[in-house]
């Protein structure tokens, strides 16, 4: 039995008051809240184990290294990678995309090659490829969406003949869950290298990179209960082996002379500098926490909350929901428009009632241009979201309508 009240006990921030009102946090797609189990592990590390990793031969250094490297194995199991060499620690999904662009793209994309992405991407999975195409004089093609906010079936033909394809698993605005397994199959059939942005999917559902069949997959820790500054890039071992380093110095070096340098083995070759140690150990604690609750249970809970939000919002006059109408085809978020009221004003008025939502273009300007709207409002959910919070959102939106006479 999924006990949301019990889960909420683990998240100290959910007891906070905002503007004198209990916090209703509906912005988990931007970043999730963190449970005590994660916060304590980070604080314990600084109190008991703090030392740099992969350097010190002293006891603390060894213990820090052991705890840090253990997370690599946990992550490998969490997403079902083949081995720990395929797990690179990065700051976030954005850095992961840039690592691919500089490490793989600059070396492999040539003039006239085709790069494909979709119109629903976050800027972080759009701009690197747009710019790579410009630098290399490659073709840049974008898969369009249909009226429901799903990728157009016939536009998937664009993948044919592509050298590289980047696609999100779950849209951070439409909520659409893409069939990335099918897309990666199309990529393999045509010999394209595939990258799946899992920033919104990993916190919401079970991830199996080998089942998806992608070459690269990335996600951010902070959206899945882990601290800021933690993220993962998965890459197939043979592709990572063939890539050039992206950042130079420290951990990624094997040997340096005045004239030359050689590189460390995977995964360290791509992890220059002192890593984000305590927070990455916090990522390990977050994975433990998510696995204890169960990704399938979390998925079911988020779907239930999303279905309830879709139903309550659809009942409101003047609300237009963006993206698929069926919660089963969505990640845990709902973006919407309220007739005649700008999203910024909606968010400001809700904030006064302690309700946190996101307003703006959510780093997806090409999508908003495509939808022909300047901005939207977005409520997003997590394993701790309660139905009562959706009721509070609806009540808050009624107040917005009243103030604006909408």
């Amino acid at each position, binding site marked *: 039995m999924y006990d949301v009240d019990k889960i909420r006990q683990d998240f100290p921030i959910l007891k906070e008051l905002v503007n004198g009102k209990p916090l209703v946090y509906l912005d988990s797609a931007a970043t999730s809240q963190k449970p005590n189990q994660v916060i304590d592990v980070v604080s314990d590390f600084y109190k008991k184990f703090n030392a740099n990793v992969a350097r010190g031969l002293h006891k603390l250094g060894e213990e820090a290294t052991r705890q840090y490297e253990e997370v690599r194995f946990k992550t490998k199991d969490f997403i079902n990678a083949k081995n720990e060499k395929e797990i690179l620690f990065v700051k976030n999904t954005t850095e992961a995309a840039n690592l691919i662009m500089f490490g793989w793209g600059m070396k492999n994309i040539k003039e006239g090659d085709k790069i494909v992405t979709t119109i629903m991407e976050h800027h972080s999975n759009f701009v690197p490829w747009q710019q790579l195409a410009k630098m290399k004089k490659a073709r840049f093609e974008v898969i369009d969406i249909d009226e429901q906010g799903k990728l157009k079936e016939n536009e998937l033909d664009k993948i044919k003949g592509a050298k590289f394809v980047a696609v999100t698993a779950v849209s951070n605005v439409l909520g659409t869950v893409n069939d990335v397994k099918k897309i990666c199959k199309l990529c393999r059939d045509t010999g394209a290298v595939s990258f799946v942005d899992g920033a919104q999917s990993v916190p919401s559902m079970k991830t199996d990179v080998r089942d998806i069949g992608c070459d690269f997959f990335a996600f951010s820790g902070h959206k899945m209960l882990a601290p800021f500054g933690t993220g993962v890039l998965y890459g197939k071992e043979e592709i990572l082996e063939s890539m050039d380093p992206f950042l130079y110095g420290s951990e990624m070096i094997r040997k340096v002379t005045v004239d030359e340098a050689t590189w460390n083995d995977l995964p360290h070759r791509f992890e220059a500098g002192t890593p984000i140690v305590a927070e990455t150990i916090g990522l390990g604690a977050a994975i433990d926490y998510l696995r204890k609750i169960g990704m399938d249970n979390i998925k079911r809970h988020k779907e239930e909350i999303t279905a309830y939000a879709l139903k309550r919002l659809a009942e409101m006059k003047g609300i237009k929901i963006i993206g698929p109408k069926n919660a089963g085809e969505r990640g845990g978020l709902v973006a919407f428009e309220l007739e*005649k009221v700008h999203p*910024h004003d909606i968010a*400001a*008025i809700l904030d*006064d009632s302690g309700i946190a939502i996101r307003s703006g273009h959510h780093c997806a300007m090409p999508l908003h241009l495509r939808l022909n709207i*300047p*901005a939207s409002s977005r409520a997003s959910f997590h394993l701790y979201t309660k139905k009562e919070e959706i009721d509070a959102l609806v009540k808050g939106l009624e107040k917005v309508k009243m*103030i604006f006479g909408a």
Partner: protein
Amino acid sequence: MSDKELYQEFIIELYKNPLNFGTIENAEFKAEMYNPTCGDRVVIYLKVKDNKVVDAKHDGKGCAISQASASLFTEYIKGKTVEEVLKLGKNDILGLIKIDLSKNPTRIRCALLPLDALKKALKNE
């Protein structure tokens, strides 16, 4: 800040029925400004004769604060010389909207968007 203070009636009224909303053909000065955090867009048009602003209009899409600010601002600068307009700063525009945004730094950017657009227009000549 409570939304009662932020969303005073005159702000909502200006949002629904903005002053000087529209475009000016053959405007001497024109510029467009985006607020990257929310996608707001303001375009300012100025008609200048004998160094004086004889007409000002604004166009675009934005939140209540940026729209009210654009309405009040375009109204305020009519009849002023170009030099006078260029001297206007943050406090002048915040004085026009008459609401305290000191605790809402992100909303100050909304209020200042028309001023930024205007300065850009006059510098583009």
